[in-house]
């Protein structure tokens, strides 16, 4: 049993990439303090250029070209960055020869599949009509805008060059498709093209707004319906905007995406990848995920950011500790080992993701120290081991916070099943300015839900997800706005306000020299 400590220690500290130097814990706030009072007119955040994530590329291509095209996963771009916030960070945009080649191969693969069944995708017969058809169809969706005359002209020029080389129209068209997928207009999320090079604030066009909304909430470029609505000018009507946001949050899975990224929940495929070690069958996986999604849905419709942690989960009946997302099997199973829960994985995830505290480096001798502890106390339970661990100053630095939180969730096993550990899990930790006292998992969730630290952290995580980047000093008022929204509205209302607010529909120029 005890050996699972090593796995979690190793992964927690050496693999996350989130740790900082020194054996300390510190606030994960990127140096930004949220002002106590809301600002009168928060400055809209800067939109940074970023490459679409592999999941966004794959999902977009699948949507645009349909399920009969096989869009395989491609290699070379960072996948393991859980929060969208990191998608503008250098690691997510790091490029390598392998990544570029892999993108080329993906574009070629799509092109070849279209070539095999050309008439299903195109009806044109000459270069001019084919460029028109591409620009009005797949090309418009890939680029998220109607093509300019310049764009069309460049494609026409390329197609004529290929024609002069004797290529047949089918080959020409699929090469144009290949180019479109490789182009920066598809592969990158760009700031508004009309953005001035000064400090001005710009309101996104409806089409740009639709594109931004779809990438954040649906994880892909906008589909025809959404783009059509934007081009029709539907988004000048606030009611239609709200309707669209509600649709993307709900049926589009936007709220689920946020929760998955925020709490680092595993997808079905990620559970499956653990298959050899994890006795967590397909049916159980599907049940846990389905039940989790139902809970998320219910919270989106009826809850607020606090009830996310405190609402009774209908699937588990009206009694017991099983309340809120942190006590839900989906969260519990996502942060567990093969055959038992992990107080370290669970505790650290709650501290880092829910309370925005992060850890310093794992001391180099940590595994040996842990091994020594386990060897010297072969019959110790997790609580006794935690007490021994916290008797060592170098461990206590982090574990005096991690362990009590994790131990409170020890009433749940590896897949979130109730279990009696035979020891009390009462705990008390001080994080920020708040003392958290709890006797069990339910009280832990409730104390977190009521804390200022959680309110602050939830606001930050929502900002990071929404803006696809970490917060900066100039975003302090935007964070205050989000905090105000979540504190005073139910989730659906707060999220709808956020996505239809000037913060999301406007952008500030970077104000940098060209």
């Amino acid at each position, binding site marked *: 049993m*005890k*050996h*699972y400590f*090593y*796995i979690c220690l*190793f992964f927690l*500290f*050496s*693999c996350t*990439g989130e*740790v900082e*130097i020194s054996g300390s814990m510190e606030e994960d706030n990127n140096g930004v303090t949220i002002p106590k009072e809301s600002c009168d007119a928060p400055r809209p955040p800067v939109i940074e*250029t*970023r*490459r679409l994530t592999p999941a966004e590329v794959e999902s977009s291509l699948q949507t645009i070209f349909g399920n*009969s095209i096989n869009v*395989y996963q491609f*290699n*070379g771009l960072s*996948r393991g960055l859980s929060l969208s916030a990191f998608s503008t960070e250098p690691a997510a*945009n*790091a*490029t*390598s*020869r*392998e*990544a*570029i*080649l892999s993108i*080329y*191969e993906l574009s*070629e*693969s799509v092109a*070849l*599949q279209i*070539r*095999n069944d050309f008439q299903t995708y195109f009806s044109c017969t000459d270069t001019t009509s084919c460029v028109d058809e591409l620009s009005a169809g797949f090309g418009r969706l890939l680029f998220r805008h109607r093509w300019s005359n310049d764009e069309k002209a*460049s494609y026409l020029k390329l197609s004529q060059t290929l024609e002069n*080389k004797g290529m047949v129209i089918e*080959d020409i068209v699929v*090469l144009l498709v*290949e*180019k479109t997928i490789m182009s*920066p*207009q598809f*592969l990158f999320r*760009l*700031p508004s093209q009309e953005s001035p*090079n000064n400090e001005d604030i710009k309101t996104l066009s409806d089409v740009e707004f639709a594109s931004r909304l779809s990438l954040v909430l649906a994880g892909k470029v906008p589909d025809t319906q959404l783009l059509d609505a934007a081009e029709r000018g539907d988004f000048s009507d606030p009611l239609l905007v709200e309707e669209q946001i509600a649709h993307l949050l709900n049926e589009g899975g936007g709220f689920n995406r946020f929760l998955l990224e925020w709490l680092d929940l595993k997808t079905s495929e990620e559970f499956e990848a653990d298959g*050899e*070690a994890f006795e967590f069958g397909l049916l159980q996986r599907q049940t846990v995920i389905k039940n989790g999604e139902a809970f998320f849905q219910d919270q989106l419709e009826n809850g607020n950011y606090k009830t996310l942690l405190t609402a009774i989960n209908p699937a588990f009946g009206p009694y017991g500790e099983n309340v809120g997302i942190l006590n839900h099997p989906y969260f519990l199973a996502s942060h567990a080992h093969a055959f038992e829960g992990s107080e370290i994985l669970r505790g650290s995830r709650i501290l880092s993701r829910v309370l925005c505290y992060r850890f310093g*480096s*794992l001391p*180099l001798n940590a*595994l040996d120290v842990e*091994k020594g502890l386990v060897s010297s106390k072969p019959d110790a339970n997790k609580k006794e081991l935690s007490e021994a661990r916290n008797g060592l100053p170098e461990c206590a630095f982090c574990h005096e916070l991690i362990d009590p939180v994790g131990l409170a969730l020890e009433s749940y096993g590896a897949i979130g099943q109730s279990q009696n550990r035979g020891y009390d899990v009462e705990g008390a930790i001080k994080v920020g300015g708040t003392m958290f006292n709890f006797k069990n998992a339910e009280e832990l969730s409730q104390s977190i839900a009521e804390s200022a630290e959680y309110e602050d952290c939830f606001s930050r995580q929502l900002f990071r997800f929404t803006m696809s980047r970490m917060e900066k000093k100039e975003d302090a008022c935007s964070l205050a706005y989000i905090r105000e929204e979540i504190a005073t509205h139910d989730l659906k209302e707060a999220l709808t306000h956020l996505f239809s607010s000037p913060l999301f529909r406007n952008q500030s*120029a970077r104000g*940098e*020299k*060209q």
Partner: protein
Amino acid sequence: MINRRMFLRGSGGLFLSLPFLRSPLLSAAEPGSIKRFIVFVHGQGTLDDEWTPSVTGRSYQMPEILAPLEAVREHINILSGIDNVVRGTIRAGNGHNPAGRSLLTCSPFAGCLDGAGILKSDNHPDNGDSYFPSIDQVVAEQIQQGTRLKSLNLNVGSNSVGEYSMLWEGQPGALTKVDGTGDPQVIFERLFANLDPNQETPQALLRKESNLVLNAVKEDFRKLNEKLGAADRLRLEQHAALIEGLETQLAGSLVNTAACAEPVLDLPIDFEYSQDSHMGASSKAHIRSMVMAMACDMTRVGTLQYTNYNSPRFGFRSLPKTIPVDPHSNWHAMVHDARNDASIRPTMRKVFQFFAEEFTYLIQELAVTPDIDGKMLIDNTLVLWISEFGNGGRHSTFNLPVVVAGGPVGSLGQHLDLSNHNSSELFTAIQQKLGVQRSDFGLKRDHVGDPIVDSIPNLG
């Protein structure tokens, strides 16, 4: 609908070596002075007290942990006593990433150096890019000579190496990571699917004009860059810069040699490259592809990296103890515990012998495959086997396990004690053996231009 990759996956993976009509294309490089370089690297080091032969010279007895190497003894030199001293300059990170990052680069994290490239005394980051490029890429810059690939980088296991990003290319302080490829089938598709230039596949037809497409894409990037601010532009420029090299990679230059053919991958019917139980099959397939890529002169430099350093189970091996086994929950934990628990050493020995077997197989394949100049590949290729720890359990970067092989090394069949030498000196010597005219490698002593190293006068 099915594409070629899907077809290959569905065909049961038993790929046959298909004959094809070779075109009389000439090599991109003139034969006569061909040098090649392959790095074979895995994580978690070794058991250094078992690894080092007891005597130096030619009459050494092969240690049990290296027993498979006996079959290629005349092609190799065992180098003991080499330290990675640069790791000690990194005052942050965990037990693995400083050792991994500095192993092939002799470089700390870029953030450990200031803007002038001087090592900072404190405020070292916990992680980050390397500051200096890795030895494979430094050598590749010099010896690629117009071949299709600057380097062929293969990963046994998953595509990702996590914190063990060892391979870096570019200018010091502004490097790009070199990612490897995990799936042997992807490599097969890339390198060998269109080996026959007379084969008019749809893919081959499209690729003939790929340069036109790529030029148009580059033009898109250029036009867009004009509209962006400096920070946004940088992201696009980094991406666009690598499109430059794509045309060469896609081109199917081929050398008319008898040895150049499709490799036999011989993969199990349910093959999944990232699955632990298929690690052995993946390794062999990658080795065959590597050797054939060299025989076809598609590249002069290759790396073979075993990426699962934490929890491989080596399920395809007949081990005395299976992994995981309580209390050694995974390979990483087992390596840690080996210092104190002699009972797990037989298992570990078997695992390290696996790497020795794979290295031996690579050497054997190189030894029987002709190069484009009529010599055998092994005559032209310097092969380096290295790992980041001497003693895996202590995560010690002293006395690294190093084996070199191949004609460029010099006099072979020896065990050399190179105590008091370090990996910077080793790589300086390797550069020189491969004709790269440089007298230093990686971090400089006092960081003011004085090389931290000289060279190792005698690798063989």
